[in-house]
């Protein structure tokens, strides 16, 4: 599990982002990070930290969301096989990504939801028509049960050859 020094470092980071010094972070605190502000998916990522309808996140919530990005090999060290599935399992990492699309939380990525994310990623550089075609194609290739939407299972299947572990992990230097 997370080492003591890692927690200290993250707490130090949390406090340095907390400009209001009230023990919680707001969306503005995240947006002050330039590299995050220019990320096309920045807003969605920031949203992932805030529980439903809330505007502040405390350190616990901060750590909990970050935990999704712990490397999977950390889990082999802990022998707790009977406990709940850890947040950074492959499945949960994928679920996290899935939730970036599925805003209405109906466990399906609709064409509309897909288009929204695509639009965030391409900005103004692709026309609605072209983008629609891209979205249609993506759904077509992933959709197995023919409901023109992507369920979590279909999402997982599409990404089965992708090294999710490597793409969605952050390694600490010590």
């Amino acid at each position, binding site marked *: 599990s997370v080492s003591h*020094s890692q927690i*200290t*470092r*993250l707490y*130090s*980071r949390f406090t*340095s*982002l907390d400009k209001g010094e009230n023990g919680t972070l707001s969306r503005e605190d*995240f*947006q*002050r*990070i*330039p*590299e*995050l*502000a*220019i*990320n*096309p*998916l*920045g807003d969605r*990522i920031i949203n992932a930290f805030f529980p439903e309808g809330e505007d502040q996140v405390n350190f616990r919530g901060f750590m909990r969301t*970050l935990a999704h*990005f712990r490397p999977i090999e950390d889990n082999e060290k802990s022998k707790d096989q009977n406990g709940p599935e850890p947040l950074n399992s492959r499945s949960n990492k994928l679920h*996290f*990504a899935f939730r*970036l*699309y599925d805003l209405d939380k109906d466990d399906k990525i609709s064409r509309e939801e897909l288009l929204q*994310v*695509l639009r965030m*990623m*391409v*900005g*103004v*550089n*692709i026309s609605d028509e*072209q983008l629609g*075609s*891209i979205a*249609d*194609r*993506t759904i077509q*290739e*992933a959709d197995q049960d023919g409901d023109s939407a992507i369920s979590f299972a279909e*999402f997982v299947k*599409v*990404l089965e*050859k*992708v090294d*999710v572990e490597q*793409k*969605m*992990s*952050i*390694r*600490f*230097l*010590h």
Partner: protein
Amino acid sequence: QWATIRIEKGVKKPQRQMLKTANGIIERDETPMEKEIAPQRRASHKFSDTLYFCRKGFEAIVEDEVTQRFSSEELLSWNLLTRTNVNFHYISLRLTIVWVIGVVVRYCFLLPLRITLATIGITSMIVGTTLVGQLPNSSLKNYMSEVVHLTCSRILVRALSGTIHYHNKENRPKKGGICVANHTSPIDAIILTNDGCYAMVGQVHGGLMGVIQRATVKACPHVWFERSEIKDRHLVTKRLREHVADNSKLPILIFPEGTCINNTSVMMFKKGSFEIGGTIYPVAIKYDPQFGDAFWNSSKYNIVSYLLRIMTSWAIVCNVWYLPPMVREEDEDAVQFANRVRSAIAHRGGLTELPWDGGLKRAKVKDTFREEQQKNYSKMLVRNGSIG
């Protein structure tokens, strides 16, 4: 020199390694977007792209290159100042005693001494320059002005217990030139004027600073701008150009970053200084953080508490490198020239280079950067022929 003795004392104290903190927290994957996204198969192409942006976002949240430059550098081993104690914990009684002695020495002995010196220095500066200002314009006046400026500067440096090593003095800025340096604190100016005379460039302030500005400009043609004038870039450039064109005028001193950075990296140089023309004399200033943190975090401390912190540190130890003069080449524009000068300074001072604007300390990042990312991604989508 009691300053030298104290520094030796500081060095003798063993570099106690308490908690070694690496300067980076996480492994950053610097694979560019093109490499990571492009080779994906078309079917899974889109969803795994999200993972890329996701990870980049989280990496930035845990540790980003920019915001860390706006707070003081972390030290590898403690230097017995509480302010750098953030990551170090209580180790032993003996160390605490040593620290207490340190506090007593710094606050009860050094601080009053330094404040006295500083007061003497500032007062002589104001009085001296006003007196010199009474003289008619002549070479005597210039000479006296230089004497006054240099002397007061030296007093002020002593007041901060500054130990400065100047390197390559043969490259010292000459008249009619422009001196550019990386910016860490308001003290940078004093550090440089300790070794030569410059025409300062800056905004008019109120209070004590304003008094100093008004007095010194009588003796020597410093370039002080009103707040409203600063906004007019053409006016600023014009005035500076006039000054530089006059070869008898002292070199002007400019800090192109526009704001104080924490001395671990050099951020974007504003191109304005490089459009004036003339010869640029780059100077690299690197402070040794072991003896005192010179960085002014203006969002956290005001100038008075900053000066108090400086005066209760062990010392200000720094290296100043004068780099060979540079001129703008035929085929480069101001931005390229600015970057070239910046590289030279960063390289010499052992600082990293960041393409980010120091203004990000206060302002939000421009949308154009995000638009650039979006553009790059769109190119990849289109290129891979994903359009049906």
